[in-house]
């Protein structure tokens, strides 16, 4: 049976087309003098009506991202700075030396709470209470990530809001400086739709794709230091992994065993 994905309804067709075209424009896939696909072609490809196509194009036009020229088609306009080709701010935020001067953060919540049930379900050893930190992190004043972190009470008790702000919201770096150095990071990646809170924080349309990275940091003794749930703007952040397979033939052999 095919399960209907969560994103099946509630977001109008015009908004879906707008999101897809926005992404293509941001990636520079339509470069003048090449026009965007014609209205009839968009109708056919996406199985939607002319008025829906026009609504999506009208919104892009109102935002100054496309130009419709009578009789010759629709063209991409020079993108505003923030909508330029995707830039990867991961080094600015996550550099081992700490975030660079271009990074800043705004703390929305910093409070001690009862550990939420989902976290206790996943990590029974987390402890009954947690320090909740919710923040928006910026690079060059543009929002990049909406971050929700839970720290076990024993770890979080040494951390102050002021200290975190001074270190531009780099939680794991501050913990390292407080003597809780991360020894392993377990990361899980997912694609989600921006809910209204995340959309507002990141300046995205509700329903637009966001890049979800959940990190569980542990120290040398395998104690949990933090569980951090990040929602990134996909045009401003990518995660990287380099996998060295060593002698490939040996790898293959090991795998067959």
């Amino acid at each position, binding site marked *: 049976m095919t399960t209907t994905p969560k994103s099946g309804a509630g977001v109008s067709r015009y908004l879906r087309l707008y*999101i897809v075209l926005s992404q293509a424009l941001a990636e520079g896939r339509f470069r003048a003098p090449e026009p965007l696909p014609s209205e009839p072609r968009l109708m056919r490809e996406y199985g939607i009506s002319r008025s829906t196509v026009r609504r999506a194009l009208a919104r892009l036009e109102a935002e100054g991202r496309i130009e419709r020229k009578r009789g010759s088609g629709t063209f991409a306009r020079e993108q505003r700075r923030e909508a330029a080709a995707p830039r990867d701010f991961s080094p600015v935020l996550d550099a081992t030396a700490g975030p660079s001067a271009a990074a800043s953060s705004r703390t929305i919540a910093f409070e001690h709470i009862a550990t939420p049930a989902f976290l206790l379900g996943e990590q029974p050893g987390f402890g009954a209470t947690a320090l909740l930190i919710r923040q928006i992190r910026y690079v060059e004043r543009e929002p990049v990530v909406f971050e929700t972190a839970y720290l076990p009470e024993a770890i979080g008790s040494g951390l102050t809001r002021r200290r975190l702000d001074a270190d531009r919201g780099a939680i794991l770096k501050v913990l390292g400086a407080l003597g809780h150095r991360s020894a392993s990071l377990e990361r899980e990646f997912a694609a989600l739709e921006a809910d209204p809170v995340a959309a507002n924080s990141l300046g995205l349309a509700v329903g637009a794709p966001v890049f979800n990275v959940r990190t569980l940091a542990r120290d040398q003794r395998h104690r949990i230091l933090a569980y951090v749930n990040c929602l990134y703007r996909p045009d401003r952040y990518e995660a990287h992994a380099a996998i060295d397979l060593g002698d490939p033939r040996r790898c*293959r052999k090991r795998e067959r065993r």
Partner: protein
Amino acid sequence: MRPPPTRDARRASRRLDMGVARYYRLYELLSAALQDGTIAPESALPSEPELCDLHGISRTTVRRALDRLEREGRIARRRGSGTYARPHQPVQRLCLELHALPETLTALESRTSARILRCNIAPVPAALRALATGVAPTGYLLQRLRCSQSEPLSLTSTYLPEPIGRRLRRPIPSRPSLMTILDHLGLPTATVRCSLGVAAADADAAHALEVPLGAPLLRVRAILTDDSGAPQAVMESLCRSDRLQLKVLQRI
């Protein structure tokens, strides 16, 4: 907890909300609260009149949001006593662990099947050419749709240098991973460099992966190189993250 929004923020949020049904906004808010435990399992949700007042929306709209959560099995409505959060049902997803790539690919090959959608010479997209220098502007495109029990998981476009593409034996086997295919050609891979992000499903991806237009998909771009550092292939995979779990364990 959250400071009241300023007028500008309210205006900006109205703009961002354009095209989104009111019920859906409430659905998303409740959905997030259920997910992160703000509304704990077995505890009561606010009543319908409370939700109407709180969000300034009609009873019908509130009911639509609750109907959807109920259909998804996330809340239970008990006549006369209210609406309750149901405990989480863990979903079984195929897990890919990047830090154990050979093992992960073996599992992928044995637990999934794939269908070839395209195999032809095609221009390599700029985003993939940017992964490394020395990637030719055209390549041999092998596009495959990977499924688990006939449910689509990922749509992968691989671009091989033309000389390697020409060496593929016909019929091209659909199931093996790119690394296995290269290995069988006597071209073992030494390094894989990935960048992970997300993308909105365009018409092709939405159709192949059976998701709505614009649905969020995990996007994995990778370059495979041999032991001399020469690129062997570049690829882009669009994955349904509701069916595929992607993990990486990093030791510092």
